[in-house]
């Protein structure tokens, strides 16, 4: 039974999953050729590894490792502050290239995407494998670093394929060959199977993805949830998960978290960091015309312990003044004096459209309306002159200095050298390549 194919088809559908290898570190290496072949690490401003090049990975550096540990095991590592502007510009190029082949592209994070190639064989006069190879070649040469590509009859198998060989792999799994891969794949490596489900499945004697695929549908329905059933179906070669190719226009929740350096025990400073996050979260909420009825605030200490609390609002609002005022009692309860904090965060919950607000009996409507009008003006000013031209007094301490002081405060090189007309906040939307001519 282990050797029987799960399906008799080749590619009933053809889905590719494309994953940038060590994306952030690769972006840095592509932009500055002097870094190529060297252990490059990004995330300096957070004090932990956000991304590491394969050279660093080989030396034992892992994600989320503290930087002082990195220095111990890899003293010659090149530590760089994250430069999200460049990463997102290169990410856009990545997606644009994939869209030259098919319009059905799902951007799944900054460094990976799914694309549906079904039905394009005749048009492009090549096989699906050739298409995947061509996309990979084009990405590798245009962006200057490598991508891992997986081709499969559905999203779950494509994701398994792209992970099969990394970096710079190209793996194609036809439906009739799925079982050959699944029997070697531990169940916890399947996309969407988390540690809890893994532990449960292992108790049922399921060790590999193939063991799981061989379970009865009735058993899966009875013991697991709908997302797991969909994974089970895809492991069996059916395609049930659709690509979501639309751009996001709404959110169920909005989160803003910021780390700051050095960690601080100054209560007002930490509160102003929270205040700044609330301002940023509400800017985004207003852009999508959403307002929360509740939100969560949380603080994280220097030794990575978190404490948070949910705050309910008396009325739905996306005015930061309302949220900041209501957050203070919660903040006072979770803030512990004498503790050093490294980050604050806010999550806006239960977001709904806010264009026809229900006025409240116990809050002055003219004040609500006046505040809304005021913030229309504030948002306009920010659009024109930059996001932080206007901010609340409660965020003052957080806006007074850079987010990170000391060596973590190094700014990305893109921001060091400005072109004519560029400002610290507004730059041309092109990644700047930094090959020095000697």
């Amino acid at each position, binding site marked *: 039974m282990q050797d029987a194919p799960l399906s008799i088809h080749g590619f009933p559908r053809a889905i590719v999953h494309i994953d940038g290898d060590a994306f952030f570190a690769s972006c840095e290496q592509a932009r500055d050729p002097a870094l190529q072949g060297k252990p490059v690490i990004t995330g300096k401003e957070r004090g932990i590894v956000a991304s590491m090049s394969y050279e660093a990975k080989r030396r034992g550096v892992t994600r989320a490792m503290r930087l002082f540990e990195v220095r111990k095991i890899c003293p010659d590592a090149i530590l760089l502050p994250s430069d999200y502007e460049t990463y997102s510009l290169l990410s856009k190029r990545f997606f644009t290239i994939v869209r030259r082949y098919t319009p059905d592209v799902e951007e799944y994070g900054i460094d990976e995407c799914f694309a549906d190639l079904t039905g394009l064989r005749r048009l492009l006069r090549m096989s699906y494998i050739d298409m995947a190879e061509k996309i990979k070649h084009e990405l590798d040469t245009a962006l200057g670093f490598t991508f891992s590509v997986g081709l499969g009859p559905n999203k779950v198998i494509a994701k398994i394929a792209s992970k099969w060989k990394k970096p710079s792999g190209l793996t194609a799994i036809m439906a009739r060959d799925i079982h050959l891969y699944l029997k070697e794949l531990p169940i916890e490596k399947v996309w969407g199977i988390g540690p809890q489900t893994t532990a449960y499945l292992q108790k049922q004697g399921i060790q590999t993805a193939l063991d799981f695929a061989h379970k009865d549908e009735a058993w899966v329905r009875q013991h697991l949830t709908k997302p797991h059933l969909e994974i089970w179906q895809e492991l069996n070669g059916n395609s049930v998960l659709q690509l979501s190719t639309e751009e996001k226009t709404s959110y169920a929740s909005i989160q803003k978290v910021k780390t700051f350096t050095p960690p601080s025990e100054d209560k007002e400073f930490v509160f102003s960091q929270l205040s700044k996050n609330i301002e940023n979260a509400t800017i985004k909420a207003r852009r999508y015309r959403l307002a929360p009825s509740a939100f969560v605030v949380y603080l994280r200490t220097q030794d990575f312990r978190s404490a948070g609390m949910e705050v309910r609002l008396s009325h739905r609002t996306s005015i930061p003044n309302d949220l900041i005022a209501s957050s203070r009692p919660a903040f006072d309860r979770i803030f512990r004096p004498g503790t050093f904090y490294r980050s604050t965060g806010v999550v806006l919950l239960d977001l*709904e459209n806010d264009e026809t607000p229900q006025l*409240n009996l116990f809050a002055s409507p003219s004040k609500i309306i006046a505040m809304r009008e005021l913030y229309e003006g504030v948002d306009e000013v920010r659009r024109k002159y930059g996001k932080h031209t206007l901010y609340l007094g409660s965020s003052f301490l957080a806006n007074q200095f850079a987010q990170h002081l000391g060596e973590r405060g190094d700014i990305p090189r893109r921001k060091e050298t400005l072109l004519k007309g560029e400002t610290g906040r507004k730059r041309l939307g092109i990644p700047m390549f930094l090959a020095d001519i000697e």
Partner: protein
Amino acid sequence: MEFTVERADFLKELTLSQGVVERKTTIPILSNILLEASEDSLQMTATDLELGIRSKCSAKVKKGGSTTVPAKKLFDYVRQLEDNEIKCKATEAAGSSALQVSCGRSKVRMPGLAKENFPVLPEFPGKLAVLPPAILTQMIKRTAFAISSEESRYTLNAAMMILKPETMTMVATDGHRLAYVETDPVVAKEGYEGVGGELRVLVPKKAMTELQRLLTDNPSEGGIEFGKDDNHLFFRVGTRLLICRMLSGQFPNYEAVMPKANDKIATIEQTSLAAAVRRVSLFSDERSHAIRLHLDNDELKIVSSGSESGESEETMAISYAGGPLQIGFNWQYLLEFLAAADSEKVQMEFKDEQSAGQIRPASEEKLRYRYVVMPMRI
């Protein structure tokens, strides 16, 4: 314990306990009902610690005693029994108690929990006031729907009841609308016995619902006796007693938001207004529930537009001379009032498009009913 009880009597009291017992509880005994037999009656008690109900029915008691059994199971079983006479017998063996129920050819044995673990509910401390049932029923109907189901800064999950020597008042709000009803002093002549001075208490939403159930099935003719100790409120309806834990908390300052200067007054026939709002509501935005009222020169136009469903419009002749006004409301808030109002005509009183509107029955007898609702900004 051993007793015989009429099925219909037993079932009626068990039904009343169902709203109170906890279905999902971490304290198993709260899913049970306490049965206590003595002399010629059976007393039943159910509680979720916030609310308790104690009632009685007559029974032929062979041997007094008590036990507790799962309330839902007992109710479901008794409901399905066919004969009139139900015999119950509690058995105690090696620390585990059980109840044997037999009725005609049906027989069951249910494991129970000893009475000692059942929470002790306070006794009725004596009446402070007597409330006429018909009036109280109407007051609950007119206010309970406006109690918020979630607690926030301005709202409590309770209505405020204010007792005075000659009048009683009930107020409920969820921050968006407020329902206020006060008795006319004439009610004092019809069985209302108030308190000296003034007494303000918060009645939780669940207690209001259960009280209303007790009132709709109230065989006794007399008034409802209201009592209070330091932590509980008591409502005695005939042989039944509802006990609820008192809520503490600051009820919002409702007097301040009752409109005083709403001089744009429209008088509208209630049933046709409700029908029009219901039709228009079908095409309103599904999330905001907003509809728009346009008032001008003895005419009311009600408009809605949902982004996907389309647009809808209704016009009706009314009596209005307040000058042109456009104002938005959540249609649910309007309909809930119209369903509770019970009046041929209603009067809507506005100030402007962003101040609270007040709606009330155009003619009133025993109750003074005011409904204050905040507009939506459109």
